[in-house]
């Protein structure tokens, strides 16, 4: 192309080199973000069967996208350098080239077909109903926390989901208020929790590990949308069963004096109106998270704080400061009341 122009080889080679270097740097950026180390919510390291299936399509589409990117960028740069204005230069006058136009209509058609075939074959698997042996979980989005129910096991928990490895899990997605979206990038693509509808997704986690899989609400849901995080723990079958047994039972009753006083305070401060603590008489509120096994969780305030006594105190003394807009009111608790409640809550294994 354009061989008659002086310096054209330099322009072409230079352009290709520049586009190559830029593409390499961008690829490094993608590779880094796709690395689980340091990126706990990366979408590039699938840890479930369906996520791996989708990953195959994702990789293919990324490669196609990269090829188009390199091609168009290189052509744009080469043409810009090669055909820039020169003294005495002449523009070649032509209106088009039918053969060329047919060719470059076919190129995008082929690319799109190459995308469509694996896309639709993947969907034919992932959109099937969940296998019969799947563990049933109901994930209910609330402004701004997650409620997880195991209807077959009689367990209700908040913001932390326990799953056994290598067993399919079928998640029924619901919402109690606005639209939320359930997203654990390593386990599955996101599906929305739409009020008035029930959506479903299923996957089989393939790796048990101590670190949690991080999830977050992905659909803008109001003031504290950013604070609507959750964790998924994938454990061995034995560990899961042990957890389920404990979680299905009542709370561990407080033994220390301070914690016992906290139990009283829990009633006196009106916490029972909104929260359930299985085994504590009168504590059967359904508005806020079930706290029966609060101390078995690693976080509080929808995954925004680690569960430490100091953080529990911080939360209780002014919930609005941690999660703006949260329904839980500031109870203006005295320091003594805080001491008692922290002791009580931190003992609810």
């Amino acid at each position, binding site marked *: 192309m354009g061989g008659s122009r002086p310096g054209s080889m330099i322009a072409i080679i230079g352009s290709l080199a520049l586009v190559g270097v830029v593409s390499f740097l961008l690829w490094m950026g993608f590779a880094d973000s796709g690395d689980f180390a340091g*990126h706990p919510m990366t979408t590039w390291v699938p840890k479930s069967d369906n996520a791996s299936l989708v990953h195959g399509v994702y990789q293919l589409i990324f490669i196609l996208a990269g090829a188009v990117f390199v091609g168009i960028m290189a052509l744009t740069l080469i043409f810009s350098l090669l055909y820039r204005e020169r003294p005495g230069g002449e523009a070649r006058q032509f209106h088009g080239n039918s053969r060329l136009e047919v060719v470059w209509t076919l190129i995008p058609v082929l*690319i799109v077909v190459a995308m469509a075939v694996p896309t639709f074959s993947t969907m034919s698997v992932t959109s099937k109903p969940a296998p019969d042996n799947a563990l049933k979980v109901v994930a209910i989005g609330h402004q701004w926390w997650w409620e997880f129910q195991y209807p077959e096991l009689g367990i209700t928990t908040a913001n932390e989901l326990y799953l056994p490895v290598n067993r399919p899990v079928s998640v029924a997605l619901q919402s109690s208020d606005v639209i939320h979206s359930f997203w654990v*990038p390593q386990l599955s693509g996101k599906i929305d929790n739409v009020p008035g509808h029930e959506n479903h997704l299923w996957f089989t986690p393939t790796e048990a590990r101590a670190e949690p899989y991080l999830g977050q609400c992905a659909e803008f849901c109001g003031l504290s949308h950013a604070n609507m995080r959750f964790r998924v723990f994938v454990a061995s079958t034995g560990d899961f069963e042990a957890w389920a047994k404990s979680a299905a039972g009542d709370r561990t009753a407080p033994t220390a004096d301070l914690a016992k006083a906290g139990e009283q305070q829990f009633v006196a401060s009106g916490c029972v109106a909104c929260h359930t603590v299985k085994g504590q008489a009168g504590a059967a509120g359904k508005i806020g998270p079930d706290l029966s096994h609060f101390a078995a969780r690693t976080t509080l305030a929808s995954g925004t704080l680690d569960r430490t006594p100091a953080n529990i105190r911080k939360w209780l003394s002014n919930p609005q400061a941690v999660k703006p807009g949260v329904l839980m009111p500031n109870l203006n608790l005295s320091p003594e009341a805080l001491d008692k409640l922290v002791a009580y809550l931190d003992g609810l294994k």
Partner: protein
Amino acid sequence: MATALGAMTHTQEDTGLWSWLTTVDHKRIGAVYTVAGFLFFLLGGFEAVMVRTQLAVPNGTVLDADRYNQFFTMHALTMIFLGVMPMGAGFFNYFIPLHVGARDVAFPRLNALSLWIFLSGGILLNSSFFLGGAPNGGWFGYAPLSSIEYAKSSGMTFYVVGLLVLGLSSLMASLNFAVTIINMRAPGMSMMRLPVFIWMVLVVAFLLILSLPVLTVGLLQLYFDRVWGTSFFSPSTGGDPILWQHIFWIFGHPEVYVLILPSMGIVSEVLPVMSKKPLFGYSAIVFAGAAIGVLGFGVWAHHMFTTGLGPVPQVVFSASTMAIGVPTGIKIFNWLGTMYGGNIRFVTATYFSVGFIALFTIGGISGVMHASPPVDGHHQDSYFVVAHIHYVLFGGAIMGIFSGFYYWFPKMSGRLLDEALGKLNFWTMFVGMNLTFFPMHFLGLAGMPRRIYTYDAGMGWDTWNMVATIGSYILAIGVLVFVVNVIKTMRKEPDAGNDPWGGATLEWAIPSPPPAHNFDVVPEVRDRDPLWYNRDHGIAPTPVPEHNHIHMPPPSYFPLIVALGVLLIAVGALSTLAIVGLGAVVSVYGIWGWALEPTD
């Protein structure tokens, strides 16, 4: 900017405020649209910079959650409805009659009315900041978060009323443009000789004419939900939030093409002129544009892949979305074909056009990527999508509009913008834009959801957020360089002449800025590139006849009165019914006076 406004159109002796308020001259109206759109663009840019500043570091404390939500919502609304669309409308107003060889648009007073209603809507929407809080539910206002139950402040009511007012303005402007293009062409200007820019405007006009009524219905229903207690979109009493999403995106997706097609048109004008050769594959580009317009109505649900549409609709909308990638690809190849073999003059307008090709391609690629529903499960509502829309809307629409600024500013003002500052402007914007938006791909891949006002350290999002924020500052500086360039240019003597670029279209044959009546003699068009044809065939300009009495429509203040009535109706819809009645009376009075006003 006032000086720019004045100089862009000092085509009439009368320059007082009243003459601007009553003008029906498409060039003056276009100038006001452009300047107002640019000022709103600066405002939207300020909101963006604030959003980026909040996200620069983990657990940022610059904005609180509510303010952040207002800012990102208003950023989108401002950029889309008050920035890009009006800047486009400015070009449409100014150049449709010049390009098709007409003396004005088909309905000059209706044109003025569109302008005043647009300004009313823009001011109304922004006044919400001072009247109880701006809209905070995102620009697509998903129900039921936009319902009175979950959005108690009046912000979302402002959103509803503001968009209704702006929609009315766009609808009237689009009707006007469509009729002008189809019906006001100079002799010989057949449809297949129309400049590509005008073709794209025609497609845009029809997209708006056919999609705005759907949004209007949705907004009216949302208004009924919020104010009169119906529940079209609230599930608690049988309504359906998914219906809002369908209605919104039946409008919203064509709207994306409304934003990008004008810039595709501008690039299709600039590249051939600067390459000094005809556009490669004119018919293909025109048909691809029309195909994008038609297909654009059949892809809306790809915004809803994660809402539980079911596999069959997913496959249908996935396939249609992939299909729309084909005409888009054709256009990119045709622009490259236009550059091929040219002798390209690299002025700032060319830089922005070539920049458009590169950056829009990136947005196009990521767009086709999330046509695949499984992949969209990762992209949807993540920063990958934020990157995508900004490569399309900034890398595409805004780069194209800036190319248009540099290309047409000499025609509008008689002065060439400074080239050195222009190139500085381009490079700061180009670098800033890529620094801001490319890292968002990485953030999306690393799982960062969009619209979060805060995030924790340790997610691997810190570095790229900081880079993006720095990029947004560079970008803002780049835009300021443009402002400086305009101010500097307006201080010098006119130096552009009629035709600084060797243009092919009709506007370059007349003085800069053009006289009020545009053409002394309505030109006769013999080719797709009329001026080049005349040049190559030695056809001299038609001499001006001796008694050349050209009658132009007289100014009118009735558009202003009708717009005032519409504004009152809108204010009433936000406050009390009595004001609606007053507004209706004012509007009817204005229309009556309008109808009886002599126009000869």
